[in-house]
């Protein structure tokens, strides 16, 4: 029975292989150099010590998302298919497009779509030999990736102020 797995298990990436290790801890009571009996932590690293069905879970980004959708989809993922009122709305039902055309949508939200525009501009300038403009648009690309993440995480923090704190 696996227990406390967040503390006792570790992983390492070696190429396209993941190595899994388990820490086996056992306390032993042994005499120290003065003859006093002390608890010694006898932890050791071993291979997985048991079979665990579906025991390993890997969360990763790939060329497809959690719904199996790739780069190109049939509808705009940033829009609703039904938007009647506050409590009547339905998201788009997206499906993969394997042979994209000019009318195909990309499977990204609005901010990331604008980032892709910057990426295409950067590559276009690179192709034309204008490296300084390419660098500018690549910076814009990564800036929009950051903007996208910051918009998703609005966190407010409040800290108590001590009674005798002087500011």
């Amino acid at each position, binding site marked *: 029975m696996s227990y406390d*797995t967040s503390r006792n298990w570790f992983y390492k990436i070696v190429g396209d292989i993941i190595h899994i290790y388990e820490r086996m801890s056992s306390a032993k009571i042994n005499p120290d150099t003065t003859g006093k009996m002390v608890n010694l932590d006898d932890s050791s690293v071993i291979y997985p010590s048991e079979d665990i069905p579906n025991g390993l879970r890997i969360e990763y980004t790939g060329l497809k998302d959690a719904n199996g959708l790739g780069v190109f989809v049939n509808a705009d993922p940033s829009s609703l298919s039904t938007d009647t009122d506050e409590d009547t709305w339905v998201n788009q039902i997206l499906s993969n497009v394997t042979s994209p055309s000019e009318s195909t949508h990309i499977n990204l939200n609005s901010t990331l779509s604008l980032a892709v525009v910057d990426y295409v501009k950067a590559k276009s300038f690179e192709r034309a030999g204008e490296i300084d403009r390419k660098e500018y648009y690549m910076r814009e690309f990564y800036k929009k990736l950051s903007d996208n993440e910051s918009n998703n995480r609005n966190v407010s923090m409040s800290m108590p102020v001590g009674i005798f704190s002087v500011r």
Partner: protein
Amino acid sequence: MTILEIMERANTRDTKLVIAWIKDAFNAIQSTQRAGGKARIKKANIQKGVREYNLPNDLISIKSVSILDTDDDNKYKKIRRIIDDPIVTEDTNP
């Protein structure tokens, strides 16, 4: 946003080339963990005494690795990554 809208904004006309660049951009976005919000999840059986497990071939960037805690109501708990090879006391595979 459609491919045509991207082409108009970027002032390009070569559709096939733009599609290739969009794929590259998607790859770059997914490899940036902070922007890659659309993660996939795959599971594998852990076998006693087996250290090595295959990663999914379509993997671009790992967000987390978890192990099932059967002692705590079958919850997946994230585990830590190590860089160096640990000294394994029961090493069966050099």
